[in-house]
């Protein structure tokens, strides 16, 4: 499991008070009972953790844990190195 994936799974598990084994890449927000407020809060934490900014349209399209991981990878790849230091 790569670093981004493991850190996001840890973050999701902690925020929902779940064991990390219950959080998979294909887990949907619905399955994990991540509501709209949880999603906003999770996005904030991810932005802080990876020094990125998730655009509104990208935020709205996130449905699974894997979506978040792939979104972070994309944003980090697009950003200059100094802005992606974590």
């Amino acid at each position: 499991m790569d670093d981004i994936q493991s850190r996001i799974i840890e973050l999701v598990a902690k925020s929902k008070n779940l064991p990390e084994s219950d959080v998979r890449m294909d887990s949907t927000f619905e399955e994990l009972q991540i509501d709209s407020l949880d999603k906003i809060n999770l996005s904030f934490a991810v932005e802080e953790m990876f020094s990125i900014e998730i655009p509104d349209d990208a935020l709205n399209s996130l449905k699974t844990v894997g979506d978040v991981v792939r979104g972070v990878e994309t944003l980090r790849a697009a950003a200059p190195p100094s802005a992606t230091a974590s």
Partner: protein
Amino acid sequence: MNRVVVTGLGCITPIGNTVDAFRESLYAGRTGIAPFDLSLLPGALSPDPGIRYKTTAKVKDFHPTKNPEQHLSSGFILTSELGAQFGIIAARQAVAHSGFLQHYDPAAVAIVTGCSCGGRGADEDANRNLYLRNARVPPTAIIRTMASSGTSNIAIENGITGPVFNISTACASGTHAIGLAFHMVRSGMAPAAIGGSYEAPLTYGFLRAWDSMRVVSPTACRPFSVDRDGMTLGEGAAMLILEPLDSALARGAHIYAEIVGFGMSADAHHITQPRAEGAALAMRRALEDVTTTLGAPHLASEMWASRVGYINAHGTGTPINDAVEAAAIHQTFGDLAGQIPVGATKSLTGHSIGAAGAVEALATVLALDAASLPHTAGITQVDPALNLDILTGEPRPLAPGKDLALSNSLAFGGLNAVLALRRYAG
């Protein structure tokens, strides 16, 4: 018009996190006031410049992620600060204790709470990080700082969809909340209600601000003592279940006390200096309201005044508050004033600002239920200038025929609220 009784109780306080523990400390005179270390609070400066006082009254052993009886889901913890969490758990205790929700339509039940300071912890964290580090503000800062976040979460936990709101009138918030809940049930506007208050304001910035006000005791509050030198800050929550007497009797509920009157007034005088006339007006209005509840015999207010056997005073322990409150009691009761036992719960719990009114209403309800008046702790010698019968030393029996009690709250800004309660003798 309904007669309104108290059938359920709950609390989280510096002297107990259950009603049984609170009652035991209340009658044992066991104080929750203790030294604290300012430098350990979140955001404390280093080196810390220090403050003049050394004690607060903090809630102990509150662990909503570890203690099953205080358990809060991740959703509640995400959206509430400590004070709101106290309120949710106190309400949970009261609801479970009374069993009342099984007998009323939750679509009509009311929740009226008091909270003055809101979620100061979240506010201070966000502002400190924003202004010192240009940090982003967490999305939960809005929700956690709302004074009504506990109120909403109580409604969510219990599925109550009736009139639900929070009142912020500084140190009178809790009494205003219970008083309005009482009027709503008395009038039939709500079939039953949860009334109470919560607060957890003991943050670094709050403690420093109160230090600047120079009204906090360097040691511990000693209400009505000749050497009193200020208040002690506290935190906590208390919740009461209110329902009509007839319904409570029909379902066989235990009745702790009856609420028979509520009076409000404003000094319209000064933002910090209390005026006796305002407090006396609220007490008189509470006694007049007893007539509204129980009928209108000739000279009713005077008759009710003669039956007051206990005043749970606002009693903060500041030189000016206690003197003004004593003057107000004399204005209200005239020749009877010196014969009425007066006590101050803040000598044990500290002053929990918005929560104080409900914590003291709880103490008054328990006193009437037990027909035993808790004493005021910490008094070295009662201030003779007050000319009041202050409860000291040990609990005292409620005198026969004196079945009424008042619970006073006199807030900064001159906002006064007084509850009149009566021992329920069946």
